[in-house]
Structures are given as C-alpha cells and as structure tokens.
C-alpha cells in the first residue's frame, strides 16, 4: 500500500502550506534518522494528527532557507543507514543545518519550538533558560519524549485505571525498531 497523503488536515492548529513534492517524505525521513523514532510512528499510514505536516510547515515558516539546506543535506545522504544520516546532518553540513536539525528534534520530542540560534549557548555556557513556544496544546499531547520513556505525556493518558501497577509495553511498541529506514 502506498503511503497515503493526509491532505490538508490541520488538527494541530497550523494550516498546511504547499510544499514541493517529496519535502514531507524527506522531512519525515530526516526526523526519523535524527530522533531515533520510526518514520511509521512519526507519520502513520492513517495520520490522524498531521504532526509531520504541521512541523514541516512551522519549520518552513521560521527558517525557510535553512530548511532547504537541511533537506539537501538529508538528500545527499542517500543510501546511508540512519545513524550515518544523522551524522551527515549534525556534523558534516555546517552549523546552521546542525542547529536547525536540533530544533526539529526538539519539536518532535517536546512539541516546542526553540530558536536554533539560541541553542549553541547551551553547549558551552552554564545552565540557562532558553525561551520556547509550545506548538499547541494538542501537539503537546503528541510529544515524543514520553514515548521514549515508555509512558504518556503528563496530563494526557489514554490508558486504563491501574496500568501503573504493571510494566509498560516495550520501547519498540512506542517508537518502532527505531532510527527510521535506510533511505
């Protein structure tokens, strides 16, 4: 079955903008390689939330030029395994692409937009508060850091009474085998 498009569904509060063919697929691919979460989880076959499209649109709106460079870096890593794809993006494509890549990772993990220009100071400086904007309430409920912890976002549980008394499902049930598929 071919991966269906989600059309203009915008449940996370951002209307979709037109994107060049393949941008969404590639955005999901690079997101999977960077975050370590399967592309099929980030964008399921029946994508009820439209998160990937919303995050692509947000990234394009905030950093359109660098986004193109990020996509180009991803495309240049054709044929590599996901960990190497991540390396190409984060270490071999320049600082602007690397910082934007990290903002994209933070989008997926925390449903929050961090200005890429503010991230380098975190590496070298003392602990500091970096302002961020939570994309939307509904995006928060789909943030991925909790899945990486085999749990649910605080304030958003779909599970039944008493679940906490038992072990959670394994990590693979949440994020897949991880890392995305080879391009």
């Amino acid at each position: 079955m071919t991966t269906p498009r989600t059309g203009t569904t915008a449940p996370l509060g951002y209307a979709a903008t037109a994107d060049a063919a393949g941008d969404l697929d590639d955005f999901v691919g690079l997101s999977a390689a960077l975050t370590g979460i399967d592309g099929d989880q980030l964008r399921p076959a029946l994508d009820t939330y439209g998160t990937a499209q919303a995050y692509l649109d947000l990234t394009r709106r905030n950093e359109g030029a660098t986004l193109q460079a990020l996509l180009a870096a991803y495309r240049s890593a054709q044929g590599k395994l996901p960990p190497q794809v991540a390396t190409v993006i984060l270490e071999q494509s320049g600082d602007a692409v690397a910082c934007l890549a990290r903002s994209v990772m933070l989008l997926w993990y925390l449903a929050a937009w961090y200005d890429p220009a503010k991230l380098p100071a975190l590496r070298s400086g003392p602990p500091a508060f970096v302002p961020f904007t939570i994309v939307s309430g509904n995006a928060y409920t789909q943030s991925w850091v909790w899945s990486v912890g085999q749990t649910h976002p605080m304030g958003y549980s779909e599970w039944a009474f008493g679940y906490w008394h038992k072990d959670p499902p394994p990590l693979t049930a949440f994020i897949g085998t991880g890392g995305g598929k080879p391009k």
Partner: protein
Amino acid sequence: MTTPTNPQYDVVIVGAGIAGALIANELGAKGKRVLILEAGLDGQQSHIDDMARFYTAQAKVPEAPYTPPIVAADAQGYQSPSDPSSMAVGRPSTLTLTQGTWQDETQSYLDQQGPLAFSSTYERVGGGTMRHWLGTSLRFVPNDFRTKSVYGVQEDWPIGYPELEPWYGAAERAIGVSADADDQAYLGITFPETYRYPMPPIPSSLVDEAVSAALASVPPVDGLPLSVSNTPAGRNSIPYQDRRVCAGNTNCIPICPIQAKYDPTVTLGDALQHRGVSILYQTVASEVLVGPDGAVSGIAYLQYDDPNGPATRQGTVTATRYVIAGHAIETPRLLLMSKNGGRTPNGVANASGHLGQHLMDHPIYLSWALTKDPCYGYRGPLSTAGIEDLRDGEFRKRRAAFRIEIGNEGWNFAVGDPTTTTLDFIAGSNGSGLNPQRQMLANAELTQRMNYVLTHQFRLGFLMEQTPDDDCAVTLSPTWKDRLGLPRPRITYNFSPYTKMGFVAARQTGSAIYRAMGATEYTVHPTKADVGNDPTVFAITYDAQGRPVPEGTTPPAGATTEYFRFFGAGHTVGTYRMGTSATDSVVDRQQRSWDHRNLFLVGSGVFPTVATGNPTLTLAALALWASQTILADLG
C-alpha cells in the same frame, strides 16, 4: 447574578474553597439561606480553558492552568509573572521565588520580608487552592494534637484525635477517599470496628515497589524501621460522584484532566443544588464590619468585571452568622484590613494579637536518584505511597518530624524533566546533572540514553513539620496594593533550628534509602555562596552531639554546617489558630472567634501546628464539625 437578592441571609461565607463549599452544602441541605462570596472566577465552567492553558504553559507550575492568568509572554518569549498591582485578584506564584523576583513589587504578589521566602501558593477561584492539590488524604496521628504534652515542644491542639475521628470519616465520604483502613492504622490512628473507606485503595506504582523492596535493608531511623505505606487519596478507584476512575494522567498537580481527582467544584455544585444557596463570583470581601455591640454586622465587598481592571461595584451583605474561609493568608489579610473607621485598629477578631501569626508550611526537602533497575516513572498518579513511620517518636523532642512522599513523576519536580534532560542530550547542556560530558546525541544513541534515564528517575519528598514561630507572620503591606486598591499581604518567614534539624535527618534518611536500593543519588545541595543569594536556601550548624548551634555564635570544634534548599508544599496553615484561651489563640475549639460570637474562621488557618499529614482531610473534617456548630446556633 451580580447582586444579592436577599438582604438577610442565615450565613454568608467568604471563599468557595473546600471549607466554604462543605459548609455551604451542609447548611443548604438543611434549608438554610447561604450566600458565598468568591473573589475569583467560576472554576467549574472553565475546565477546557484551564487544560488548554496548562498544555501551553512554559512552566507547568501548580497555578499554571487557573484564572486569572498570572503570567504573560514578554518580547523575549518568557512567560513571566504579570504585575500584581494590575490584578484585581492577585495571588502568589512559584515563579517569584528567585533572588531577583521575590521582593520585586512588580513581580511578587506577596510583600516578602524574609529572611526566607514563603514558598507556597494558593488560588483565588471557584473551588479554591484544592483545584491543584495532589489528592493526599491522610489523617493526623494522635500525638500530632499534643506535641507539647508529650514531647514538650510546639503547642497542643484544644481537640484530640478521638473527637475528630468521626469527622474524618465524614470528610472521607464527602471527598471520596480511596484506601484500606487496615493499612492506615499506624502510630495510634484508629478506626471504628467496621469502618470502610468509600473506595478501595489506589494500586501502588512500580516506583513504590522498588522502594519497598529495599527498605528491609535500611537501618532504623531514630529507632524506627521504615516501610512503604499506601497513601489514602481523594481520587476515584471506582466510579464515584458521577466521576470517572483515575486514568493515571500523572498530572494531579496542577490539574486532573478528567476530574477523577476530587476538587471542591464537586461539592460546590452539590451546594448550589440546594435552593437556599447562591454564590457571587468576582466578589472580593474587603471589610468585615463590626457593630456597636461588638458583633459582626456585615461584610463589605468589591466586584470587578475585568480581572485586570478596577472595582466596578460595591455592596454589603448581612447575615446571622459569618464564615471566613479564604485560606490562611487571605483570611487574616481581610480581617487585618477591617478597621471599621478606626474602631478596630488591629483588625477584626484580633484582640489576642495572634491574628496572622505562626504562619507555617510543610517545607519540603527534595532528593532524587537513578535506580539500579528500571522503575518506570512518569506513570500513575503523582504519588501513590509514602513512608509514614517517621511522623512520630521520641526524636520529636529534639527535631522536626516528617513524612516521606514517594514521587511517581521521575525528576519532573526535581529538575523540570523530561524537558531539561531532553535539552541536555540534544543541545549539549547539563541542567539535569546527567550530561557532565556535554554530549549531543541523535538516533538510537539518543533514544537509548533518554529511555534509560527516564525509566530510572525517581524522587523522594520529605514534608517537614515546621514549628509555629513568632518570626513567621502575615501582616499588611504598607505600600503594595492590588488593582482594587487593597493592601497586599506582607510576609515574614524563617525556620527554627528544630525545623532545620529535621532537614538534616531527612538528608541522612534519603541517602540511606538510596544506598539500600543500589540507586545513585543526584541530589544537588546548595553551598555557602547560595545563602543570602537565594531566598529558598538556609544553613544549619550543629555540634558533634547533633544539637543545633545558635546563629551568630562560634561553632565548637567538631561542628558541621549543612546547606539546604526547601520547597513549599502548598500547605499554608496556622494564622488564626484555635486554642483554649482568648489570649493565645484567635478561635476556640469550635472555630468560633473569641471576640465575635457570630463569626467563624475555618480552613487550615485554625491549625495550632502543621502536624505531619497534608492538611486537607483535617481541615475538611473541621469544616464539617463547624457546620454542625453553626446549625445548632441557627436553631
């Protein structure tokens, strides 16, 4: 409705929190005419907006969901506190406890005079502060009511456990508490032979079990062995009051998305079903009026349309009985403001001079660790169990008692996780202490590392019994005002050596527990440089025998100095305490003002000591008791 329809009520209640709601419901059920004045907005209709506000809050602090909003985004994108002088119903925020904010008139609602920052907050909204309680519904232990008689410290209450016991049962039914009485009969707590809690206990978490498994190898503390005890909670384990069972949203503080956790809007709804009960929102009591006969003759109030606007209307209501249920800072504030044209210069109900005095909290000592094996935190209610064994014992002669709350929410309270650790391993910071190498990870390395730390994080909170002290008080700020022109509360706050020595014992206990668990402790303790530069940090020096060394004296050889950071538990108590005489207390054992027969002061402000359990159940029990007294008055 904006104006009262009856000029004369049986009872007027100031405050629609748990105490006000319970009393209104009891009186309404008996056909009494009751008017509730609530300073804030209607909390029942706003749940969806509250959740939306919570989801998008940068700092998910207890007050984050509630109205009126007390943070606004500035140009840099920080959601920082709004200026309290612009707010008609300002209230404290945990965001104004830093060195740069706690004494800033444009940031801190409370005029904090120190030396330490009073760190607990409260709400002014329909349903009150309990909108964001955790749900913990513990009874006090019998010795909590008589520490002076038994240990020679603090004060005795004018009441004891046995006479409060039936009211505890009534409160447990009103709230809907889940527990098993067999698990809760420790340290002298007793139940009637056939007593059953309304609902079965909440299942324990995997974190609880990890702690429990290790406790057998923890040496007794002050002679007392430790055990894990299921925590009674106002949280549904079966359908109750037409509310759903807990789904483990792990969000009790600040807001349960599905109202599986009780909050007073439930009782408020019940109360308003009685024909005689009505409520005015956005109605701030501004003065308690006293007549020439010395009885309370009315309550003056201001109303506002815009929470950031001025008063738009004013009025007065009269009743046969008056109940002030505005929580432990706003209640003394109101009474102190009530000057009656100079006839009550020290405020109403304050002949004793004790109004506003003995402000107390349960200051929390927080410690945190990574477990040896996964304990799968961030699941279930925020806390399902604790260690209650150290709430009472001989040691109370020398140092503060505490209960230990086992946290199910990883390092959320401790370091602001999972946000902090995520930022650490993606952007290379070390806010969590877990990334000293300043690594930046991706792909499987990132998920493996994040999965490891998140599934091994947990924390313990030690709730300290702070003593009632003369240097902890609520008065009125001479200069800071709110938008209605009313003086904001002024706070002085400090800890006695007795309280501070409790922190010393807590630290040792925590470390012992982590050692027995094979866990790696990550608690960050402040240093000498932080004292005086962080209003939530204090120092304690003690000699080789463990006795505190008085401040300002030279410590003897072998003395140790430790530094601690504390957090507020949200347990504000003591500021209009009950007692046996009119000279050393504000209300009598029935919560009636010594000075005005027709005035009752209810809520946690009546506590002579903060005791060792969370205050809600006890204040609810006392409120139900007060309802009976008021009904007897009304005949």
